[in-house]
Every structure is written in structure tokens, then in C-alpha cells.
């Protein structure tokens, strides 16, 4: 068995003295793991950092086996991301969410494309730190949708209206309008406005937190709990950082 293509590093862990177990998100083969000879050595260690774009070749005698990767660095976004704590937190959250949510070796090209675009956005965009977290929310919306648990934000679940949608029902994952949701507002999830319109650069910190709470609720219920997983630590750290930023701006 053999395949080759592009991939994004999700994680890499040391295996033995100088080798590594690599986990990547590839376009054609989904989330995939494999052994890399010399992967934690001086030459390949820097290449296998989370977020790096690689050209990969995977080979295994038997398809079910772990297999072995041959890797080459295509491009590293880390040079611009590493110096900024919030960018780095967002990148770590993105790769850990993909790693925790997708089944292994299942093809999800839309998630790959979205992850690639969002990493590049975090790398290049200088506009608004909360916008990077909003990019994570969009990525998570895509993951939910690809796994069959997508949110229906097209119209109000109660009235059928497509105007003034500000809530999401935690039961049906459908949008609810302000008027219909008012009596139950403490039981409904808040729908941030940036998810309803075109992609915008300016997203408030509070809206980003609401977005993460929304997608986090459904990911936890539909994906992570089913796999007996807890929410990824990197995502939790980003969320608590945003909460403390929001508190500071209120004070």
C-alpha cells in the first residue's frame, strides 16, 4: 500500500531515541498516522512541528499497519506565528480540534482545505486577534457539517423566518429567531452574528467566545463524548484566554 500527497502536521511524538510517530491531516487520506525514521532527530524534528505543510509519502506492506512516512517540508507558517502568543494558541487549538474530532483514515477534503486556509489566515492576518478565534469557530462548523452534525442556520426552527436569527437550539441544532427564542433565552445557545454574514475581519472578543461555546457544545456532545474524549486542552486554554481578555476590556 502506498500513497503520496500534501498534509498538515497535527502532532508528532517521540518514538524511541530519534524516531517519531507523526499524525497529519492529508487532503486525500484524511487524518493519518505513521512512523517517521529519524523524526525526532536534528534534521527532521523542526519539520514535524504542528501546523507545517508537508509533502508526504506513506508506505506499508499491509494496509492496516501503522506504515511509514517519508516527509519533505513544503512550507512552514511558524516563523510568523511563533512570536505571537494568541496566534500560537489558535494554531494549537486548530490542530488539536482536528486531531480529536476526525476518525482516522477517513477522507475529509473540505476540512483539509478549511484547516489550510485558516492556518494561512492566522499566519497572515494582522487585523483582529478575536478574528483568529472566529476562524477556529468556522473550522469547527465545517468539521461538524462534514461529520453529519452540521448546524442548520438557514431559518428559525419555530417560525420559519430567516430574519433576526440570534439563538441556536441545543436540541435540534437549528437557528431560532430573537422573538421566538425570548421566552427560552437562558436555555438556548447564542448565535454570533459573524456566522450569519459574509466573512468579516472585525469580530469582537465576546462574539468569538460565543462562537466557541456554540461549536464546543455540539462537538462535545456529538463527537468528543462519543469517543470518550475531553475537549482538547489547547482549545480550553484559548477559550480561557479570550474570557480573560473580555473581562479586562470590561474593567
Amino acid at each position: 500500500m502506498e500513497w503520496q500527497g500534501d498534509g498538515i502536521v497535527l502532532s508528532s511524538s517521540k518514538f524511541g531515541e530519534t524516531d517519531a510517530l507523526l499524525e497529519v491531516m492529508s487532503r486525500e487520506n484524511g487524518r493519518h498516522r505513521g512512523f517517521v525514521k529519524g523524526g525526532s532527530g536534528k534534521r527532521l524534528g523542526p519539520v514535524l512541528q504542528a501546523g507545517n505543510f508537508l509533502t508526504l509519502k506513506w508506505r506499508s506492506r499491509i494496509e492496516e499497519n501503522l506504515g511509514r512516512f517519508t516527509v519533505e517540508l513544503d512550507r512552514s507558517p511558524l516563523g510568523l506565528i511563533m512570536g505571537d502568543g494568541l496566534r500560537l494558541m489558535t494554531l494549537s487549538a486548530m490542530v488539536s480540534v482536528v486531531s480529536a474530532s476526525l476518525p482516522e483514515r477517513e477522507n475529509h477534503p473540505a476540512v483539509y482545505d478549511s484547516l489550510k486556509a485558516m492556518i494561512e489566515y492566522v499566519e497572515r492576518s494582522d487585523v483582529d486577534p478575536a478574528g483568529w478565534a472566529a476562524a477556529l469557530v468556522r473550522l469547527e462548523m465545517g468539521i461538524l457539517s462534514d461529520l453529519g452534525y452540521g448546524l442548520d442556520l438557514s431559518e428559525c426552527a419555530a417560525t420559519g423566518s430567516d430574519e433576526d436569527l440570534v439563538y441556536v437550539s441545543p436540541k435540534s441544532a437549528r437557528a431560532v429567531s430573537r422573538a421566538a427564542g425570548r421566552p427560552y433565552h437562558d436555555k438556548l445557545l447564542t448565535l454570533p452574528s459573524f456566522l450569519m454574514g459574509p466573512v468579516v475581519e472585525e469580530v469582537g472578543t465576546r462574539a468569538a467566545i460565543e462562537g466557541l461555546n456554540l461549536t464546543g457544545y455540539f462537538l462535545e456532545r456529538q463527537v468528543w463524548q462519543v469517543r470518550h474524549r475531553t475537549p482538547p486542552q489547547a482549545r480550553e486554554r484559548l477559550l480561557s484566554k479570550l474570557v480573560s481578555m473580555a473581562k479586562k476590556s470590561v474593567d
Partner: protein
Amino acid sequence: MPRSHGSEIDTLIQLLAKLPGLGPRSARRSALQLLKKRDSVMVPLANALHDVADSIEICSECGNLDTVNPCHICGDIRRDQTTICVVEDVADLWALDRSETYRGIYQVLGGTLSALDGVGPDDLNVEKLISRATQEDVTEVILALNATVDGQTTSHYLAERLEDAGVKVTALAHGLPVGGELDYLDDGTLAAALRSRGVVT
């Protein structure tokens, strides 16, 4: 299987093979060298191992490994007590100290935050660092952690925790290695070097 030596030598070979850089074959070669140089190497080595094993301690101040507590670095009054250099583990501390470019004191963190390995802030010596950083005479904390995603995530986390300590928090620069040629550098390093460019003096 033919037996060329006794079980004691087998045990020695198996223990040597657990050391970094040694596999079963090189462990056999090392064991043979030790056996051949019994008086000049083997016995002194055994004594040295015994002595160190008896007296080795983790420094209660910085987390360094030494035969005295506090370690030789923390006990050296000639060192600059106003600067703390934070390193991931003892190997990094020894590497930095070997370079003889830094004359302050250290704090060994004991690892980095890692979502994959489940290492959180409570598993590291963060509280010890913060209590040392808030001491009156400390003015600067240098974060000398690896330029990896985990290392830099930890750096940013520590910088945030040290915000209220009233000290200057700095980190090692990223960029061109000494003797490095631009043509051979990866674009991540080049981008970092370009971003941290400085005035030529």
C-alpha cells in the same frame, strides 16, 4: 543459544543498552572495553557511579541535578542573582552554562506544556518560578525554551503568568544560526529572522 559469558556480564550489557546512543551491539562493545580495562576504567567508573547515586539530589532552588543542595550554581555568590533563566530540563541548563555566556541563576521547568502528552501547568515548576521571580532582587526572567510549538506555547503562558511579578520578561531570539547560509534555511526560520531583524552597529 551458545553461552560465551556469564549472566552478570549479560546484566551489565542489558543495562548499558538502556543508555542513550547505545544499542545491544554497542553495549556489548562497551562492556568488553570495561572488562579489558578493569583497573583503569571499570572500577573507577563503578565507584563514581556509586558515589553519585548515593549523593545525587534535585536542587530545591532551581531543579538542577547535583551532589549538593542547593546546587553549585545556586550556591555561587558570584553569580548575578537578579536574572533567572528558565530552561526546559537539566540538559538545557548544562548546555547554556557550558557556553559561559550567561552568569545568572536558572530555573528548570521540568518539561513544556503539551496537549498530546497531557502535560499541564500543574505538572511543571511554574509556582516555584513565580515565587522566585517575585523576590525583591530579581529584575529579569529570560525564557530560554525550545523554538518548538510546545516550547513557545509554554513561553507565552509563562510570560502571561509573570505579568504581575514586576520583572522584565525576555525570550531568546529566533533566526539565523552562526555559520548558517540563507540558501539552506527553511522559510519559517527565515521569516522569524526577518521579523526580528535589528539595526547593524
